[in-house]
């Protein structure tokens, strides 16, 4: 692929010198996930006080990662810790969503019905995407840092150092693989709910094993990481963008249309969900340009 104009960017990514950019991405995606969880939990009526935590934490992550764009110190303290707490919150939320399904009439005896109609089981984990990015960013070097990592103050050894140097391709490919499966499952059961009435509803379901396969292959083979992963990741991103368009159209076509737009956003196709799938592509793409871990 001819990526000459992007060469300096890629070089920075390969060196792990993109803390500020990733902090920016974190801020943006945290804002979007915060909005999404705010309205999704509104649908659930905030019937448990803990449902406010992801909303508040999203705000905190957005604020912290915004300040991290300007301050290394903020990146290595604030952003790191708010993101870590948010990731933990996602795991706790996952537990609560599982509990929510348990407590629905029929519980796990009727898993399909209750997965579809209960709290979206994987959503809290997917919500952690932004925090995950921020957490990673906190260990990166900044764009203005020198290429030669050795001159910088840096962690002595282990995974911190590898992230610091942009050597976490396998790790990110693994994360992207898991994220793809979760997001693909969500797409499957939500589209199953509306009975796959548009053929495009199948595309994320079909792309999921492909993207998952590419991510797994990337863990084991650098060649796959460099060649397949960018292609499948781009497909996933395009699909997410197209899906976003369809979801917007779906909302616009709901009864009442623009006159009941607020309600239609709430109960139409989830407007941000396709972007989440696109994010899996973005993760894959990022993984594809990183360097591989030294060990193994």
């Amino acid at each position, binding site marked *: 692929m001819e990526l000459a104009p992007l060469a300096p960017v890629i070089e920075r990514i390969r060196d792990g010198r993109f803390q500020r950019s990733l902090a920016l991405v974190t801020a943006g995606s945290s804002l979007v996930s915060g909005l999404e969880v705010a309205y999704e939990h509104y649908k659930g*009526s905030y*019937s448990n006080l803990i449902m406010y935590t992801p909303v508040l934490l999203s705000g905190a992550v957005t604020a912290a990662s915004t300040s991290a764009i300007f301050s290394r110190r903020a990146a290595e303290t604030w952003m790191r810790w708010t993101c870590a707490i948010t990731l933990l919150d996602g795991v706790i939320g996952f537990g609560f969503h599982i509990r*929510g399904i348990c407590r*629905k*009439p029929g519980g796990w*005896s009727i898993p399909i019905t209750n997965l579809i109609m209960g709290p979206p089981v994987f959503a809290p984990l997917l919500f952690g995407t932004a925090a995950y990015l921020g957490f990673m960013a906190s260990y990166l070097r900044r764009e203005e840092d020198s290429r030669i990592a050795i001159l910088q103050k840096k962690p002595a050894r282990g995974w911190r150092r590898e992230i610091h140097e942009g050597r976490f391709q396998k790790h990110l490919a693994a994360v992207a693989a898991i994220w793809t499966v979760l997001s693909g499952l969500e797409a499957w059961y939500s589209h199953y709910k509306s009975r796959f009435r548009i053929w495009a509803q199948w595309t994320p379901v079909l792309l999921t094993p492909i993207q998952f396969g590419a991510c797994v292959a990337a863990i084991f083979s650098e060649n796959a990481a460099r060649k397949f992963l960018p292609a499948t990741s781009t497909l996933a991103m395009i699909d997410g963008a197209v899906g976003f368009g369809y979801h917007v159209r779906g909302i616009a076509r709901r*009864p009442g249309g623009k006159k009941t737009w607020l*309600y239609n956003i709430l*109960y139409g196709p989830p407007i941000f969900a396709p972007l989440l799938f696109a994010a899996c592509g973005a993760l894959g793409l990022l993984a594809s340009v990183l360097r591989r871990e030294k060990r193994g």
Partner: protein
Amino acid sequence: MKEPLFGAFRQARSDVHNLGPLQRIAKGTKQYRDDEEVDYVIVGLGSAGGVLLQRLAKAGFKVVGIEAGPFWDTELDWVSDEKGSHKLYWNDLRITGGTDPLSLGENNSGKGVGGGSVHWAAFAPRFHPSDFRVYTEDGVGADWPISYDELKPYYELLEREIPVAGPAYFPWGDPHGYPYGPHPLGAVGDVLVKGCTKLGIRVCAGGPVAILSGSHGNRPHCIYRGFCIQGCKVGAKASTLITHVPEAIRYGAEVRELSMVSRVSMRNRDRVNGVFYFDREGREHFQKAKAVIVSGYAIETPRLLLNSACPGHEHGLSNGSGTLGRYLMAQAGNVVLGRFADLIRMYKAPPAHALSEEFYETDPRRGFARGFAIQTVAPLPIAFAKQMMAAKGAWGWGMRRVLMDYNHWATLGVLGEILPWEDNRVEIANEKDQFGIPVAKVTFNLHENDKKMIAFGVKKVTEIMRAAGAEEVVQESRYAHLVGACRMGSDPRDSVVDKFGRTHEIANLFVCDGSILPTQGSANPGLTIQALAARTADYLISQGERIFTSDRRDMTTPPIRYSLAVEDSFTKGVPRFV
């Protein structure tokens, strides 16, 4: 899936009292002896009785709720079936007549703990401020002895307690938001939204309904099965059976089920001292009490007060004015049915989930006073067949054919304000029920204003149905809800109770239920009844012992006691901005 993962669903536990799939309480409740004088006896544990029981018990009073029907175990007694739910309704004999006789039973009367709130569709809008001064504004009906503002904090409180799901901004009446988020629409709601928006009529999707859109402690959220008026086994739809009665019992109240009160007993001309009732075996008992609250709804309350006639109260208790039993109201509940080319499947989603109050207020151009609301309804097959009998004259093969098209029909309801008229009333008939208690005779006549309103309402809803794309539209005339017949007012010459529900003639006899409403608006009365009950409870509690000892009437408005709200009312739900 051919069957549930772990095999067919098994019977729920029978060693506990199930109030929904998660909420369980111990079986049986504390028993007061008949000769033990309790503070309050509440006759009827429906929408009002359940709230009163909980409030008074939580405030520390000795209180017994006597209920004619059973104390339901929702898992073991209720079924997910239309015909099998017949027992939820008041099926004892009543006589109905007049020029426009009301259907009773299933249509508007519950029996058993929770009363009508067990089988209401759970639309829970507030009344509009104008409803409280109908006579002043329109020269018809009556004014209330209280204003909207006096009831507003109770509306807000009860909306949290039961809780009510709806939009963050409800534009009609006194605009406000709801503590629980709106529900997803079913296909019938889609029809209403489509039709209304096409005609430029504002419409509200997803509420306000007293159905959980998110779980609430040990009550799961709605599963959209459409059996609201057959009793919600899920426990998502609010009824005092699951919202207030469990807490009442926790605070020591007694629920005495299957006990039919036959008359209120007078200690002397001015005070009552208890009630006579028949237990399930038909044995008569007397429960001694310092004060009695009658919460039997618009037919049984006047029936009981009329049947309690005694020397000094020859025409029934607190009926010196002759008003008792008069000004009974039902709302026009015409159902407009539309057939669509596309499938609807209206048995899915709660029948109540979208409405418009655009035509609620008086518009002089329409040629009648007051107005109506438009709401989704969704009959199950038997009710639908009965509607088709009425609306199309269907029978035989025609009935079979139209029912084969059941999934193509959507139904919307008019909910219109019929004014209080003196000749619409409850009296005592010659017949007696299984206990030998004379039954009620209900007389109902439509008047000119009512007929004009109904005609206009049906026309408007038909337009909406057409605008939504219906190919064929028919309608059935019917009525919904029952209120009035013991109305409250400040003048003892034309009302039965004062603004706190105390009867004008007997200082320790109260009425608190739908029967005290002077007018009814075009809003479903359930929430208003519960709000009034919470207010009466606050009054009784702030009066304390004086209720039991003094004949003096203190008419100062009591402070609202947020501490008596059902536990957890304030830790759940969305903050209220309006």
